[in-house]
């Protein structure tokens, strides 16, 4: 397959893929691009890391800064929680409090607490509290409802 790389001095980065018929090579590239687009920019100190959403345990906003917690790292993100809610339009992610988004797939077990609150034990051993305000939507989400609009 022939390809051309051209550096531009202004304007938006763009990638154009021309093909006559879908073939394994093109499909492979498309799959790579789709996966890449789903990844989120995050920073470990100043190093840019393209973070796979499925690696995130939860995202927390502290003093106006957003952090993504993975099994072994805490990464800073440039997005607001609201923006992340839009980017992660996946039912696997749930806004569990004003300052937190939770990856339901990374929850190990749940505990029902007094006053209709829920304690989520994460697979790294941390515990996250789902407040009463969000608990009923969380229950609906588990049952397959209450998707992001």
């Amino acid at each position, binding site marked *: 397959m022939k390809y051309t790389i051209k550096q531009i001095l202004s304007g938006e980065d763009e990638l154009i893929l021309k093909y006559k018929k879908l073939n394994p090579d093109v499909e492979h590239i498309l799959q790579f691009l789709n996966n890449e687009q789903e990844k989120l920019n995050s920073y470990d100190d100043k190093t840019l890391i393209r973070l796979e959403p499925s690696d995130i345990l939860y995202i927390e906003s502290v003093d106006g800064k957003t952090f993504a917690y993975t099994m072994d790292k805490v990464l800073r993100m440039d997005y607001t929680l609201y923006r992340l809610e839009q980017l992660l339009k996946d039912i696997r992610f749930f806004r569990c409090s004003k300052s937190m988004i939770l990856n*339901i*797939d990374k929850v190990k077990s*749940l505990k029902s607490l*007094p006053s*209709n609150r829920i304690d989520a034990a994460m697979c790294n051993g941390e515990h996250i509290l789902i407040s*009463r305000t969000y608990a009923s939507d969380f*229950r609906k989400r*588990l*049952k*397959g409802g209450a998707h992001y609009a």
Partner: protein
Amino acid sequence: MHKTKQKLSLWEHYLTKEIGIEFKACLYFFCILFFYCVYKLVCGIHEAEILHMTEMIFLTYFMGYIQVYLLSNFDEAEHLGRKEWIFMLLCTLVYTLFSYLFSWFDRNLAVSLGFLFYVLTMYLCAFMVYKSKRKIDEKLLNADLKAFQERGQHE
């Protein structure tokens, strides 16, 4: 839109608390009424005084508000710690004191003492019922979580 949603959630929050108090008032009123009726039957009286029942209803509502807003809703607590025991004893004493003042049991000290133990048992039972309810809820929650995660793996 967001503000309306927030207002609605505050309203829902308030309503949930009110329903909780309502439920508590009904539950404890029924328990106290049962003791009162048994006492009356033992005394050979087949009528219950409306005044006493009204006092019971108002008192159980009042105690419901105190429990929820001032005493950390102790009967729904996760564990029975020192604080919960103190609150439980305090409410038991208040109920016993009012039963004496309102002369529900003809100011009979022995019956009042029996009522004190009865109210304490009533609170302990309520605590256990709430705890069992949460255990069942926890089982359902974890089953839903597992099903959700399995659905995700198959997608």
